């Protein structure tokens, strides 16, 4: 084809696929596999890997045609880490064998992925990770501890950053792997959060064996590979165009409309101020999408996650104040292990508490300010006392 197809072309292609694969008459997984094999899973991916090598925005026409036909989706909330972080990294750094092995079950949801990055001693300073991977024959033996690992209890695979060379400065001694979560050396323990539930886990890795064929990128190049994952994570958390009053602002605006008795002038001005900010964030996301579609990617994407965090925190705090006495009650402190990451679900108390994580997960707001200041505005970097010191000699 000499020029890219239009949205209407894609709709026609999706309908053609649906005519040959009736979602009502097919097993869900079989349908999703067929969709992947037809190149309609993520059209911007290469042919043979679930895509058709087309502009990303053409996916929308496919999704709309599928939704209209009542076709099942791949439950993106359950496999968000795989879709948003593991997949782009596998695509960018994986060998042909790795891409062929991992991307299809990742997209269909047959294999859930988790992220083995943060450690008790390496949060914002991710490059300081202490989990060791030691070469052993044609594989590696891994020992260490990871934290803040969403969905580890459901995951088949984990993207793992581990130290392969402690004798060089911290950024240079890292390697990136896919870790089989069914290895007997992997122990997943729920990590209960301040919400009462355990969406996250601690993961203890004891003599876990990883074949060298499961390494992503070169030995010692793990930091660069991880950057791809992290950039995609921030886009996944803050990005995406949505209708007006989507998300937290919609919840709070509804509460305001339903409870005239709770209204005060001060709360009103705060609500309207946040409504304006939410609308500004929404239009900014829309503009970022238009820039991407027009082939003019800008640095604005890095602002989206940062803006999202403070907005959801302020809104969820306002919601509790609006609710008065009801704001004093919490739905349930019972320890649970949810099967998806949920910012808006459950009650207002949960929303308030869960939002506190938004400025910590996926890069703290403080680190994001540094990134914007240094990479967008070109301001001087932080003084790095650890830059030229071998990792093993760093104070800890």
């Amino acid at each position, binding site marked *: 084809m000499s020029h890219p197809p239009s949205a209407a072309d894609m709709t026609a292609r999706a309908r053609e696929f649906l005519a040959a694969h009736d979602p009502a008459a097919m097993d869900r997984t079989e349908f999703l596999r067929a969709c992947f094999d037809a190149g309609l899973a993520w059209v911007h991916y290469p042919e043979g890997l679930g895509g058709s090598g087309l502009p990303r925005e053409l996916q929308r026409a496919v999704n709309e045609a599928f939704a209209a036909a009542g076709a099942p989706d791949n439950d993106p909330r359950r496999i968000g880490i795989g879709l948003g972080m593991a997949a782009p990294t596998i695509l960018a750094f994986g060998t042909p064998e790795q891409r062929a092995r991992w991307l299809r079950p990742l997209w269909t949801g047959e294999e859930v992925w988790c992220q083995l990055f943060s450690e008790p001693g390496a949060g914002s300073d991710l490059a300081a990770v202490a989990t060791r991977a030691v070469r052993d024959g044609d594989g590696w033996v891994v020992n260490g501890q990871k934290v803040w690992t969403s969905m580890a209890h459901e995951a088949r695979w984990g993207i793992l950053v581990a130290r392969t060379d402690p004798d060089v400065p911290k950024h240079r001694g890292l390697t990136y792997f896919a870790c089989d979560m069914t290895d007997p050396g992997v122990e997943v323990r729920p990590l209960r959060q301040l919400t009462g539930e355990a969406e996250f886990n601690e993961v203890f890795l004891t003599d876990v064996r990883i074949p060298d064929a499961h390494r992503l990128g070169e030995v010692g190049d793990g930091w660069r590979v991880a950057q791809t994952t992290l950039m995609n994570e921030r886009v996944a958390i803050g990005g995406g165009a949505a209708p007006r009053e989507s998300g937290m602002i919609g919840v709070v605006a509804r509460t*305001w*409309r339903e409870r005239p008795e709770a*209204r005060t002038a001060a709360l009103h001005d705060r609500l309207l101020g946040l409504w304006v900010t939410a609308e*500004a964030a929404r239009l900014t996301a829309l503009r970022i999408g*238009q820039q991407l579609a027009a082939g003019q990617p800008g640095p604005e994407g890095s*602002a989206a996650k940062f803006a999202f965090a403070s907005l959801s925190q302020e809104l969820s705090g306002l919601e509790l104040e609006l609710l008065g006495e009801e704001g004093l009650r919490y739905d349930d402190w019972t320890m649970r292990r949810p099967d998806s990451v949920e910012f808006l679900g459950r009650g207002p108390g949960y929303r308030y508490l869960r939002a506190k994580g938004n400025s910590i997960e996926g890069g703290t707001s403080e680190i994001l*300010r540094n990134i914007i200041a240094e990479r967008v*505005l070109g301001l001087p970097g932080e003084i790095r006392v650890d830059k030229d010191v071998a990792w093993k000699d760093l104070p800890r």
Partner: protein
Amino acid sequence: MNADLLYGEDEDQLRAAVRELLADRAPWPAVLARTESADPYDLDLWRALAGDVGCAGLLVPEELGGAGATLREAAVVAEETGRAVAPVPFLGSAVTATALLLALPGTEEMLRELAEGRSTAALAVPFTTPPHAEFPGTVTADGDRLTGRITSVADALPADVLLVPAGGALYAVAGADTTRTPVTSLDMTRALCDIDLDGAPGRPLATGDAARDALARALSCGAAVLASEQLGLAERCLEITVEYVKGRYQFGRPVGSYQGLKHRLAELWVAITQARAVARYAASCAAGDDAETTADTAVAVAVAQAHCSVVAVRAAEECVQMHGGIGFTWEHPAHLYLKRAKSTALAHGTPGRHRTDLAALIDLAPA
């Protein structure tokens, strides 16, 4: 939603032409010097903008000698006049007054003169008037003779024609038939004046609903484009501040290496990226691109004004603060930006006023 929030190629070219002319003719030392001269408006510069670049007639149809462009292009010019704090009556004459005349029949000759840069016009209402204000009542009409006082009017000092609301109708009045008293203005680069009419002859333009609708349309267009002026000003403040903190050394380090400054600048940059999205959206809606976005104009303008006013003031205040001692002096342009920014936050309604207006539009009733 169909609003295009990007800039087109024509808009990029228009921006480049305006920026080049302003850099050449209105560098900040010249702008500062003019604020203390007898002529606060630079009408030579305005004639160049009108003639060479066609800024005066952007909104005017081609058959009347204009460019037949829309508020989207006008918003791009406003970004540039905001960046340069240029002392020209672009907003008052080429946007607000022109939008009013475009909404009324029988104004072709006036529009032609405005488009050609032969005259300028101003809407004679206080600069603080928000888009949905009550019809002004400080001037009365006795037949076609107008009497009364209008205070704090922007871009009226150099205007040949004043568009005056009086007794529920709109009139065109020759500037020379009124008494205009210059106001010592907070924004030295957009001098205001008080206007006294003492039986001044007015040419009736419209009455009743037609007058009310035209006035609301003009104020809405002015407020929408003002948001882009604020965006341009904020962006310029961020640029010169970033430049300064990179080069200013204290304690052996650039002051821009301290998180106390760089984090605030990062936050300001985030707010400006949002300001660009809301300003482009407001301009697109007010431009009348399509029915869906046109219907959203009131919300879009209120959001843009509520957001961009705050961002412009914050950018200018941070510009002063982060320049330290030099930023507090007359010899540095930061004060020109601060005065323009704070004045624009009051112009066409404060952020609080726009939030209040918004409440009714989006069904979030007050207490």
